């Protein structure tokens, strides 16, 4: 994790730098079908994160030797815009984004009913327009909505959420300062109906008890985030109904 710092990230009353309590999420807003061309799309604002996701497919997998005769392959591409971070990021994939793309693809594939689409490919493009800590889990949360909005059958949604350790305390949904100067970071992807874990990474220093505390915080929060996802999706159909009625 980050380097030692004099910044006090959480005070005696368990109030964090941005005024949140330990188990409080930053504001989350999700919109669906924000893009015209894509088969499904979504836009998420999670704290200061602004992430747009487009889904294309299922379509024929290309190159052909990548095809799987038993199922569709899910290819997520996590990408950060050059201007999304403080110091300009060189455009194009780096080692970090290759790794994130891989784990996000795997997490989505666990939820999508890939066996219905042999030889096909489902492309999920995750573009981070502005980064503010927790981009991979915000991107995963939005990607799951975009896949659903594309009408692709899924077993469950995927909800991403992070917990971490700052000032020796376990907190939910790390902010940028907490991410940079905290002691541990645990991003997880959860199927909210079954509480199954489809994405998990961790770095820093957690005891087994702290891990328990962090995961129970995440599990509770996923229910709230899943609700936001559901509302974003149902809202899409409300609007359509209205248009048809007029």
């Amino acid at each position, binding site marked *: 994790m980050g*380097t030692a710092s004099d910044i006090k990230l959480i005070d005696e009353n368990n109030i964090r730098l941005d005024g949140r309590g330990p188990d409080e999420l930053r504001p989350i807003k999700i919109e669906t079908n924000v893009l015209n061309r894509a088969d499904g799309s979504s836009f998420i604002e999670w704290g200061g994160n602004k992430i747009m996701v487009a889904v294309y497919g299922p379509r024929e997998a290309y190159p052909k030797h990548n095809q799987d005769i038993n199922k569709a392959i899910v290819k997520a591409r996590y990408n950060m815009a050059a201007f999304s971070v403080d110091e300009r990021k060189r455009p194009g994939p780096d080692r970090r984004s290759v790794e994130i793309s891989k*784990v996000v693809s795997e997490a989505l594939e666990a939820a999508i009913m890939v066996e219905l689409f042999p030889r096909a490919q489902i492309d999920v493009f995750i573009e981070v327009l502005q980064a503010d800590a927790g981009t991979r889990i915000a991107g995963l949360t939005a990607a799951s909505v975009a896949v659903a909005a594309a009408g692709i059958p899924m077993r469950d949604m995927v909800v991403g959420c992070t917990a971490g350790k700052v000032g020796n305390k376990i907190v939910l949904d790390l902010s940028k300062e907490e991410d940079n100067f905290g002691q541990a970071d645990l991003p997880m992807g959860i199927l909210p109906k079954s509480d199954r874990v489809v994405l998990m990474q961790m770095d820093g220093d957690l005891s*087994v008890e702290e891990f328990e505390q962090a995961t129970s915080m995440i599990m509770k929060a996923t229910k709230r985030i899943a609700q936001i996802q559901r509302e974003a999706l149902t809202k899409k159909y409300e609007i359509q109904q209205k248009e048809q009625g007029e």
Partner: protein
Amino acid sequence: MPKDALGVLSEIKKSFITKQIKEGRRGDGRKPDEYRELRIQTNYVPRANGSALVELGKTKILVGVKIDAGEPFPDTPNLGVFTTNVELLPMAFPTFESGPPNEMSIEVARVVDRGIRESKMVDFEKLVIEPGKKVWVVFVDINVLDYDGNLFDACSYGAVAALKTAVVPGSKYGGKDTQLPINNTPVSVTIVKLDDVMVCDPDLEEEQMSTTRVTITTTEDGHIRAMQKGDLGYFELDEIRKAIKMSSDTGSIIREKYLK
């Protein structure tokens, strides 16, 4: 994970392994929490500042550490620099090709790197030559020579063993050669799920038929320093708890026996 030379693991083999594992035995006769024979030979390449040849079952990898003076990162002017790279050599497996690093080698390198970095194994504060200007840069280069499953752990053990024997070449710059400052010994243990059974240190066959994988790195104090879930399946929370226990138990045996 790549498929075997024929492209698939035969269904007969798969059902044999599944049947065996339900009876608590693995294809090669191991118990679920048993790792394969591990051999570590340090100082295998004296030309490097530290090195280790690791054989984990039939998986064989070679780690070389090179240490040189260089510039620190602007955001950490008072810390040494650490980089890890994994080369999946074409000699190691029929479908490995030469060329730039692919997803698999990047993931292995980053998981190994994270375990070592986050455990604070190497004392990077002691690797500063001139604050903000010149620090020691530690390059860990891992070559995979023969692939038979579980690169994560083989590479991690090799990197840890090589770093423990590594020498900072101060004499090259008019100083003294010193041992690389080491704080602790992180041990990574990879666990896969075969049907519903969790086994550690999967060989290639087990890796190919497993639904999901997790790599957990722990230190002497039993704390978790890094984790990475991979592959397409899922874990129940209880399974993760079990994996953490398995990792720290098996990890402490490996630490005592091979990485002292």
